[in-house]
């Protein structure tokens, strides 16, 4: 290492870049979550309800617990995905989360430098648990009882108070508020669980500090918003491909990001 300040700063910058490249491991979570998203396809076989109107009444209690306010229509039209889709996503997202945390620890043991995954873990657990417990409880015993005009400000104040001691309290409070709002979309949207993936991967992009990772997370998030919101604007896939396209589009983005990340890692060696 050199002694003059300019050379020293350049060398330190090179060391930081090298450590950053060496610790990158986002490509595997991208591939894993791409496959998990593809794996959800069979659970979205259309089950049309408009004619009979009996779909919601026939759902088990678990479905009503997970979707206290019902579902919005997506690009898949007016049918309700089954409770099997909910169970698939909960199990897959939990296993995916554990696999990602294990992967970064395993990779650290191989390369000698570890990516901090706490932010990813916090975001994913928050987004997994809140729709399972928080949203149903808040919806049933709080928002529906006292009305949103009171419940919403009380919730906002509670979140701000809970994050008051954080190191970056404004950013933390805004992030938790945004995640809290996003968590309420999960039960309502037909592909709402993809929001859990998008939020978790955004946390991963933040800690990875990789342009490629950030770009693909942004593309994935845009695709998730599109597949969930397209129905509102009467944008529908052709009937023959809708079941595959709505999971296929976000999955392909993740798989492409994983493959490109993996190739870049090999080239950087």
């Amino acid at each position, binding site marked *: 290492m050199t002694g003059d300040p300019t050379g020293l700063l350049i060398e330190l910058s090179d060391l930081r870049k*090298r450590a950053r490249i060496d610790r990158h491991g986002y490509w595997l979570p991208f591939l894993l979550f791409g496959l998990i998203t593809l794996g959800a396809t069979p659970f979205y076989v259309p089950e049309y309800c408009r004619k009979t109107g009996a779909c919601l009444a026939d759902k088990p209690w678990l479905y009503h617990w997970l979707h206290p306010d019902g579902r919005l229509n997506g690009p898949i039209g007016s049918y309700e995905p089954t409770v099997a889709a909910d169970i698939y996503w909960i199990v897959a997202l939990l296993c995916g989360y554990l696999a990602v945390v294990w992967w970064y620890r395993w990779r650290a043991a191989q390369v000698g*430098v*570890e990516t901090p*995954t706490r932010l990813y873990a916090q975001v994913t657990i928050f987004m997994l648990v809140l729709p399972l417990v928080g949203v149903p409880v808040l919806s049933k015993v709080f928002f529906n009882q006292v009305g949103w005009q009171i419940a919403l400000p009380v919730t906002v104040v509670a979140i701000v108070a809970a994050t008051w001691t954080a190191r970056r309290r404004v950013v933390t409070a805004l992030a938790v508020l945004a995640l809290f709002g996003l968590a309420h979309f999960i039960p309502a949207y037909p592909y709402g669980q993809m929001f859990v993936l998008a939020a978790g991967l955004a946390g991963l992009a933040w800690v990875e500090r990789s342009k490629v990772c950030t770009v693909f997370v942004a593309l994935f998030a845009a695709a998730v918003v599109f597949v969930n919101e397209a129905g509102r604007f009467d944008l529908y896939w052709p009937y023959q491909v809708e079941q595959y396209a709505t999971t296929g589009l976000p999955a392909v983005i993740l798989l492409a990001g994983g493959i490109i990340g993996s190739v870049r890692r090999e080239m950087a060696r």
Partner: protein
Amino acid sequence: MNPTAGLDDTVHQRHRLGVLTIAAEAKRVEFSYLKSALELTAGNLSRHITVLEQAGLVEVEKGYEGKRPKTWLHITAAGRTALAAEMAALRALLERHDNL
């Protein structure tokens, strides 16, 4: 104030600055990774790490990976603050030099 006053002797030593820079980029970093990245001998690196540990800038954690002993270190909050102050002092020094 002269920018050199912002330089901390413990941190300013270039290899220790290298250790802190790499450690600040990760949750934790392994001894052999630092040895390779900084091109130091094990003895030299150990001495630098001891200085940083005694100053409270890094924490060392020893363990095993299978049967192989591994030494990990992670930067403390004080270490991050000291590194940021050092980088700011170096940049100020350069800026002052360029303006001469």
